[in-house]
């Protein structure tokens, strides 16, 4: 899932220092599961802002609203009648949610409450490890399901660099060398000959915003015109 971490308090406080009425919008999906931007984290941030602003003799009126997903018009609609009362909005959703919320309410300044850190797996409560960079051209089939784009510090597609060091990466001993792990797993599965398959240079189609329409969901031409 998409994971994020709460922005430093000072940064958030500085962004909203001139506003007297601020709505804090949480997102009830990915960032709620990763304990960064759900209903509870909205309450914690609001408590912090409330106390800090009172101590600064600059009180602020705060609203709290958590929607199911901020990356979906259906759920943002719930905010239509509320946002007009506020000078600014803090969004605790991932970068997608923040932008989508800001698009829906273009007259109101929207500020991020979290830093989106990537797509990760849940190792334990509150512990997330990145596994995918959503490069748009998956090579996991030939790399024994270990992603070299994410795991290799250089994102190499065709084998390790000279910095591979007995299973570790040259950047840090506790960072696995992706290609060492790929070699290990391919060998274990008796697929080692596949390691010589060559991946041509990628098209870097992740340099522009991508749009995805799932098969069967393309809007019929007739409906689009009407």
């Amino acid at each position: 899932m998409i994971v994020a971490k709460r922005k430093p308090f000072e940064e958030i406080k500085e962004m909203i220092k001139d506003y007297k009425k601020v709505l804090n919008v949480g997102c009830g999906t990915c960032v709620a599961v990763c304990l960064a931007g759900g209903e509870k984290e909205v309450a914690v941030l609001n408590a912090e802002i409330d106390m800090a602003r009172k101590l600064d003799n600059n009180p602020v009126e705060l609203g709290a609203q958590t929607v199911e997903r901020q990356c979906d018009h259906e759920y943002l609609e719930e905010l239509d009648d509320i946002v007009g009362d506020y000078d600014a909005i803090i969004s605790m959703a991932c970068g997608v949610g923040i932008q989508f919320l800001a698009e829906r309410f273009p007259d109101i300044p929207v500020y991020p409450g979290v830093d989106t850190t990537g797509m990760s797996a849940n190792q334990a409560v509150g512990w997330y490890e990145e596994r995918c960079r959503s490069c748009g051209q998956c090579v996991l089939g030939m790399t024994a399901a270990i992603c070299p784009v994410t795991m290799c510090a250089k994102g190499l597609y065709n084998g390790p660099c000279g910095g591979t060091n007995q299973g570790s990466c040259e950047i840090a001993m506790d960072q696995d060398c992706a290609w060492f792990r790929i070699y290990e797993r391919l060998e274990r599965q008796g697929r080692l000959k596949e390691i010589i398959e060559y991946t041509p240079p990628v098209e870097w189609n992740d340099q522009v915003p991508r749009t995805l329409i799932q098969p069967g969901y393309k809007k019929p031409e007739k409906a689009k015109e009407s």
Partner: protein
Amino acid sequence: MRIDYPANIKIIRLPCTGKIDVIHLLRAIQKGADGVYVVGCLEGTCHYNEGNYRARERVDHVRMLLEEIGLESDRVRMYNLSSGEGPTFAAYAKEMTEHIRSLGPNPLKASAKV
């Protein structure tokens, strides 16, 4: 045992300190409490294995948040004792009360909505 402890302390009972959340401790301070302390079982004796360790993590996190907000982090503390230690409970209550008195009242008290 009938041991006295300071009367200004309000006890909120929990099934386990592992139930404590950051927002509970923050809300207490936000609403004007001068200090909050969590009393958990002795480390290593948690019936749920790690409830008191989790509580300590959260207490430490709240202490960091209070610093960021501009309040003394030492208004929130964690103590550990076993359920058989009545005198220690009273001693910690006294220690915390004296400590908070030395810090003075919560500056948010005037504006707090109770």
